[in-house]
């Protein structure tokens, strides 16, 4: 059992199981009460010590792994905020904040910037904690480490709280940011002159050199390739890279670190340096690069791995890539356990693990194809969970893009050095890098133009992911034991079977659509309306898609689209923009870009039956009325249940509808105009007589919605009021006889009987 002592001296400690146990503990932390974790940790530790002293050493492994998992769970439980933490202030609050810039300001538009601040004082009182401030107006020159004072409006971060939709506030909380804010750039007072630390100076110098010597789009691309800075890269170029499945070259990653280490190694060897000199040079270069590009999980991973591999050369030892990968994971997770859920962390580790364990064929082309395939297979579940995205052209596009991006990155690094040396050298290197950048952009545009380059799919369930990983593991094992007939065949069969299970489980949301129930979901999109109607036969109709458009957070793209994909809706039956206001129609363009839409309805649309449900557009006739009063309402009926989506119609429109004698009675009312005082007049509500009233409204909106009087009128007619600012998305589901309403935020469900004759 115990190997010869010579092997231990090589430090061949397989760290992978320990890293996996630690990560599992972090992942399970929300479900493990701390007391239980402490108890298990103590018991497991005692057990492993006992076994180590008395029994066979290897038997101590199981309790030891359990102890490590509990350690992970306890590390991930958030500590209570210290009493002087800025997160404990009563918010919202307008205050003078004195703070130190924690990072270089991110200037993402000429008059928009984001600052990460480490607070020192709020209104003169000592406070601590990290906050994010959005600046509007042209920002003053600021640099990392600088102290400044700013009069800012401080608030709690707010994300979209919808099923299957990324919640930005939860992500910020994991990063320890509990307060965000906004301020005018004119209210920023630097308390000391900007003195950027050397990594920031190198970064600024490089970006300035790129911008000076290249056309703007190419400069932005090179900034992304070399430094991961995409702020100046046009959105359509980014989109092309994303669709082509080669977006990863725009993020700074292990790829850059490996290229840099390789380039430095080759240069120093060519200059006549020894192996050890080259390794030492590589370590210095990699650490310097990591300092310049910042602490992304992928950079830390690649840096730790590169340093370990190079240090092994330095010390004349054999490096284990698996071990250095596991050590990198342990180091990152021990310091920042929240990174486990970060897409960047997951993509980086999944891709690297895939490349490390995959069998590599001989031949350059076959090997590069194998690397590309291994990485694609490994990141597939991650890409589906976070982006609902499956790239079909990525495998081929990477074959062309990765060498190009590699060449451009190495040339870009050289260009930074050349720009520091002199004009002639810089002109030569930039002249060489420009055509490479153009070809790379052409490759991305070409691959993105392929029809079906990206397939959007629902996020796979945990079961599907487990089955998929099992299938990959079985496939690998079958490959390793292919010489042994019986075992190889059994494993191959196992791989096929588990893969089928994974596909079936992943396709379940798409296959189970159309169960005869009508669903109306009022999504939480901040201030605005976005409503998804799913008919009994599984078709989906989107009524308004929230705010959107350039320079603002697009609710259509960020909330409505992922909600639909995760519901298994891959194409839309119809869209209806009730009126042209930006908080209703803004996100519609993104939906038309991302989905195939069969019909586009407007105010002239006729009543129609879709899958057994009757949908009637109602347009109030108010001659010369305001835009809100010409908004289209939609009435949806199935059996005894009816839903009236009242858009932004105000008093004049409501009166016109009452006078026209349009049937308005409905079980569920999407309250007009976000609960404003000018809507939901008493006669209108008396005609509708809703049991359930849903107000689609953003928290802290500047209009004072919803109005207390309107809410009182709703309660007066016996309606139960739901609000997206407090409840998150509100989900209504009915089979025509009973109706359930779910608040997404706390998961509470209420059931309403529509048929007075039966008991349900």
């Amino acid at each position, binding site marked *: *059992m*115990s*190997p010869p*002592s010579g*092997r*231990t001296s090589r430090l061949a*400690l*397989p760290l992978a*199981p*320990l890293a996996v146990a630690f990560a599992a503990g972090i992942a399970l932390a929300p479900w493990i009460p*701390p007391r239980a974790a*402490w108890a298990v*940790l*103590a018991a497991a*530790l005692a057990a*492993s*010590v006992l076994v*180590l002293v008395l029994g066979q*050493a*290897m038997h*101590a*492994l199981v309790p*030891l792994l359990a*102890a*490590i998992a509990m*350690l992970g769970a*306890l*590390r991930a439980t958030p*500590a*209570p905020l*210290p*009493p*002087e933490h800025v997160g404990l202030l009563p918010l919202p609050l307008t205050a003078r904040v*004195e703070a130190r810039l924690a990072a270089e300001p991110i200037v993402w538009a000429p008059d928009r910037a984001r600052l990460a601040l480490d607070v*020192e*004082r709020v*209104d*003169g*009182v*000592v406070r*601590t904690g990290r906050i994010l401030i959005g600046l509007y107006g042209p920002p003053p020159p600021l640099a990392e480490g600088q102290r400044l*004072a700013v009069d800012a409006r401080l608030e709690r971060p707010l994300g979209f709280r919808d099923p299957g939709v990324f919640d930005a506030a939860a992500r910020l909380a994991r990063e320890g940011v509990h307060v965000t804010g906004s301020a005018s750039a004119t209210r920023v*007072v630097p*308390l000391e002159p900007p003195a950027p630390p050397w990594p920031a100076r190198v970064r600024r110098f490089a970006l300035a050199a790129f911008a000076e010597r290249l056309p703007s789009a190419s400069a932005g691309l090179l900034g992304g390739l070399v430094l991961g800075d995409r702020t100046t890269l046009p959105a359509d170029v980014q989109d092309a890279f994303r669709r082509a499945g080669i977006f990863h070259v725009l993020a700074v990653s292990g790829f850059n670190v490996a290229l840099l280490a390789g380039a430095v190694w080759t240069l120093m060897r060519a200059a006549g340096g020894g192996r050890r000199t080259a390794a030492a040079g590589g370590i210095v270069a990699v650490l310097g690069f990591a300092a310049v590009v910042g602490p992304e999980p992928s950079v830390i991973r690649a840096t730790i791995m590169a340093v370990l591999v190079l240090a092994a050369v330095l010390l004349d030892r054999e490096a284990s890539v698996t071990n250095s990968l596991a050590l990198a994971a342990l180091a990152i997770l021990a310091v920042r356990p929240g990174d486990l859920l970060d897409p960047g962390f997951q993509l980086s580790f999944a891709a690297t693990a895939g490349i490390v364990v995959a069998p590599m064929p001989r031949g350059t082309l076959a090997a590069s194809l194998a690397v590309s395939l291994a990485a694609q297979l490994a990141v597939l579940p991650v890409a589906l969970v976070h982006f609902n995205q499956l790239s079909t052209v990525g495998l081929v596009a990477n074959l062309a893009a990765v060498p190009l991006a590699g060449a451009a990155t190495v040339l870009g690094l050289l260009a930074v050095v050349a720009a520091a040396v002199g004009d002639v050298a810089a002109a030569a290197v930039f002249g060489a890098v420009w055509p490479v950048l153009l070809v790379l952009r052409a490759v991305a545009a070409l691959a993105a133009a392929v029809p079906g380059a990206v397939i959007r799919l629902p996020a796979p369930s945990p079961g599907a992911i487990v089955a998929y990983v099992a299938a990959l593991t079985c496939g690998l094992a079958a490959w390793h034991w292919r010489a042994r007939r019986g075992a190889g065949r059994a494993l191959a069969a196992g791989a096929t079977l588990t893969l089928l299970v994974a596909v079936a489980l992943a396709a379940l949301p798409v296959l189970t659509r159309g169960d005869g129930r009508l669903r109306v979901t009022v999504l939480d999109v901040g201030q605005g309306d976005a409503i998804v109607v799913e008919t009994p036969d599984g078709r989906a109709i989107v009524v308004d898609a929230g705010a959107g458009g350039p320079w603002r957070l697009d609710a259509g793209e960020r909330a409505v689209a992922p909600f639909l994909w995760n519901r298994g809706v891959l194409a839309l039956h119809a869209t209806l923009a009730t009126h042209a206001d930006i908080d209703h129609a803004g996100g519609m363009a993104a939906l038309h870009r991302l989905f195939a839409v069969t019909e586009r309805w407007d105010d002239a649309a006729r009543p129609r039956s879709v899958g057994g449900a009757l949908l009637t557009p109602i347009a109030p006739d108010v001659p010369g009325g305001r835009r809100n009063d010409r908004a289209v309402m939609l009435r949806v009926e199935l059996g005894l249940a009816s839903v009236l989506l009242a858009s932004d119609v105000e008093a004049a429109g409501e009166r016109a509808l009452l006078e026209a004698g349009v049937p308005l009675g409905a079980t569920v009312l999407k309250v007009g105009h976000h609960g404003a005082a000018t809507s939901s007049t008493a006669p209108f509500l008396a005609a509708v007589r809703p049991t359930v009233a849903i107000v689609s409204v953003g928290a802290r909106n500047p209009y004072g919605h919803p109005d207390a009087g309107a809410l009182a009128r709703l309660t007066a007619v016996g309606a139960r009021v739901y609000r997206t600012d407090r409840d998150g998305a509100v989900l209504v589901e009915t089979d025509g006889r009973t109706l359930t309403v779910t608040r997404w935020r706390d998961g509470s469900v209420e059931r309403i009987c529509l048929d007075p004759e039966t008991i349900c």
Partner: protein
Amino acid sequence: MLGYTRRQLVIVVSLVAGGAVGLAIDHWRHANPDVVAYLETLDRAPATVREPVARRPNARVQDPPHASAPAPSREARGPEPSARDGGRARPARADDATPLDVNLASAAELERLPGVGPALAARIVDVRAREGPFGSVDDLRRVRGVGVATLERLRPRLAVNTP
């Protein structure tokens, strides 16, 4: 495949045990801030702690108004006003060799001293406001977070000129 030697496992168990103890102390500190604060007050030489605290409330608190210039009492009101105008209006005077009077200095001025952050500066001003001025530079030990090392580092930059 998973061959661990006894020695490796002993190393891992020790690391996990060490990590667990560290984590336990950390959680305990977060759960009991009062006890931690009390323990930190004990973490000083007892003579300088007991004596001034016991003597000061009846002896010195009435002193400042008539015994010294109006400056300390203005400063003693709290960190807010001094921090605000001190932060910008006064240039970096504390950086030169002139010793700073602990009883007159604002929080912003104290902050410019080596190793004094905003929290410690605020605590110094706070203790001065609540318990009265410092009798000597050594008297700074009353402030939580000022230990022997900090005091020796600060001594050349500080003075107590007020009686």
